[in-house]
């Protein structure tokens, strides 16, 4: 079947199998391997992408369901340079092995787009669907907090 969607700002129209997952489409067909797969059942959040600005588990969607929608993967987040949010992750040590990081960054980005000024509880709740086995989430929460302050114009 045919699907047309926007991925990282580029319009794509292509022939796909009806049962192809969105995660498989993005990774295997488009080669966007920044998207990671950790469980394929929507529990770990490693495959998080933004669908029309909102975080979704791309393993739980079929590619055709993205028809007409706009997808953002980690590859599309910073155009030339890394974003402030990504820099914040690095600065506070919110990255260790790096496997959950792309999904975590996108979940955080989606959270900040929906709620520019979250409190700690809202950050923790917003990231509850993304599992990190390295950091205990402490520095991830800090990174999101610090980026939210920057976006509020409060400096880092």
């Amino acid at each position: 079947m045919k699907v047309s969607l926007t991925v990282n700002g580029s319009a794509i129209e292509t022939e796909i199998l009806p049962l192809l997952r969105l995660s498989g489409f993005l990774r295997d067909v488009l080669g966007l391997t920044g998207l990671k797969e950790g469980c394929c059942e929507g529990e770990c959040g490693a495959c998080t992408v933004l669908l029309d600005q909102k975080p979704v588990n791309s393993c739980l969607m079929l590619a055709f369901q993205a028809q007409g929608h706009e997808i953002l993967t980690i590859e599309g987040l910073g155009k030339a340079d890394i974003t402030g949010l990504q820099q914040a992750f690095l600065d506070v040590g919110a990255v260790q092995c790096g496997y959950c990081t792309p999904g975590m960054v996108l979940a955080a980005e989606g959270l900040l787009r929906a709620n520019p000024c979250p409190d700690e509880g809202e950050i923790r709740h917003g990231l509850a669907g993304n599992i990190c086995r390295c950091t205990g989430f402490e520095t991830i929460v800090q990174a999101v907090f610090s980026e939210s302050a920057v976006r509020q114009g409060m400096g880092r």
Partner: protein
Amino acid sequence: MNQISCRVPLIDGVEKVTGALRFTADMNLDGLLHCGLLFSPRAHARVAYVNAHAALAVEGVRAVFWHENTPAHHYNSSIWFAGQDALKDERMFAPVARHIGDRVAAVVADTEEIARHAARLIAVEYVDLPPIFAPEAALTHAGHALREDDIPTFRNPVADEVFIHGNPEAGFAAADLIVEARITTPRSHHCAIETHACIARPEPDGRILVLSPCQSVFAVQAVVAQALNLPQEKIRVMKTPIGGSFGGKAEPILDPLCAFFALTLRRPVVIRYNRHETFTATRTRSSVTGRMRIGLSSDGRILARDTETLVDVGAYCTGGNYLPSSMLQRLVRLYDVPAERYRGRAVYTNTTPSGAFRGYGSPQIHTVAEITLDIAARRLRMDPVILRLRNLVGPGAIEPLQGLDVGNARGRDCLMRGAAAFDWSARWQIGTGAGRWRRGVGVAAATHINGCYPGFHEETTATLRLLPRGRAELVCALHDLGCGADTTLAQIAGETLGLRACDIVIVPADTDTCPYDLGTRASRMTYICGEAIRRAGTVLAAAIRTAAGLELNAEAGDLRLAAGAACRPDGSGLTLAELAGRLFARGADLPAATETYRAQANPGSYAAHFAEVEVDTLTGRVRVTDYLAVHDVGRAINPMLVEGQIHGGIQIGVGYALYEDVAIDPLTGRMRGDSFSRYTLANASVMPPMRVLLIEEGEPTGPFGAKAVGEIATIPVAAAVVNAVNNALGTELTHLPVTPERVLAAMNL
């Protein structure tokens, strides 16, 4: 100090945060073939007949492998080097499946989808054999003759370790109080977010290249050589980026299969396990049943201790025979116990094998010991912090097992500083509150090793060389598991050379280009590899100063290396890039230094953790509401990364206390917690805010005073949390994880 004690961001962080870093599953080699494995649905069964016709008929299938057409060499996937003495009981595909999830067959095909589809078409006839699931039952099980040569491979116990120090009978006779507890620790899973994967590629010269997210390329080489009965030099192993391991990727599980398929089919092959396979067909933390008896004087001195442990190693020995002695080694380093008796046994069962997992026995034994000690404190009506302070070892103590000096052991500082920062004496009280929600606080102490001395060949070789652009290359067979070891070690190298961590170019571990190293395990990276690198850096710095002295017409001893330059006392000088450029232009060798460091000591790292919990007495749910971790790290090379290790260790420990259990069904041997939806991990919303305090008193034998932190971070957590629950409820919960059902059952006793 320009690099030490600095919060340097990961030197490979940008690739990680942008998703540009290619993990094994992200790599696409020309002509890559894919695998789908078939796993045993039976806990113990002879694989009587394999019919692969239907699978082979599928378009795109290249081959089907099972026990009859793969090497029958027995191997042990836990060995670290060729010739290591270990019980060889594993095969690529066994004629007898020993656990649900044991490998029975594999399909290699053009795509993973085809391979997985075809694997389901393989018809297998099983002849069931009696399984054993309970370790207690396994103890009395003499063994089956399972191999064709009738050699029993199920000889229980696989280890029986006895240790006696002092006079335990006299100690117990003199005791004012004797407490006894039986503690069970669960079988937990590593849950690295990257599932297991491996690539093997046949090379034009007839060798095989294995690309593996591993903890030691040399261990992979040794295991593949043993499994395929090939000379080691035929196998080249390169480490790929690793998306978390925690010990789960310490043993090469896929690598022998992958290498054999690639050699046989003369095509590169990838094996990627999915989450379910990673749960059921790799390794877990061994479960331990511990009985501990402690005799104390009324003022809280431990007079005697008697411990029995029973370790369930699962279906294959792997390194499980070391576990009882590993647990003993860590047990005797924490408290000054004048009389000790220990017996540790390990048994096979028909369950998923156990293997290395962060702490290697330490979380199990310290959970047993610290929960028992807390029960003793309650019976003595004594503050558990004070009880621990009465007994903790101090600097320079000699542990009774191996006679090793524990070094600058600062466990007391951890407890005292932590108790003050946590406001322990105000928050701790005997007796439970009223109402639905009860609060309690708990404490636990722990110790862990620094490397393998004196057990293994504990040495490593580091080479540092000046590069033409004024940076330096580091060769030391390093495997950063995500903990930031590369960054930490680059800081150590940079400190000696006046360079920044990001100026150190780390050559990824490769059996062809790196000298032998035991790998990332046993909390040895910073302490052992760091010291080798510090020494190589010191020698290279002297060589650079000599070369710069000739260029600058100055005494080498007057020059200082800083900010990428060799400087005279007045600040003038030349950059290392200029120096390298001049030497290079002249055809002179660029300075390099190689140093081998052989460990002379194995000091202890120490920690004290403090937890506050809130228990809902209606539902039995426990929530950790506050957490403080205090660690004796000697010196933090990178405090940010040290704190990160501790934060992550707490997450694993909170799960160990409250949620995590693969829960082998006692009747069928099936793993119930075999996916993220059936195995609960602490997520961002349940993790408490965490505070970390570091005690930095310096370890004389460590590089810049540093000691290990990676494994110890997770060791005291479960006991601190369970002790807090028992404090909140006045219970004596001893079976982990402390699930709501167990909490409610204990309250209703």
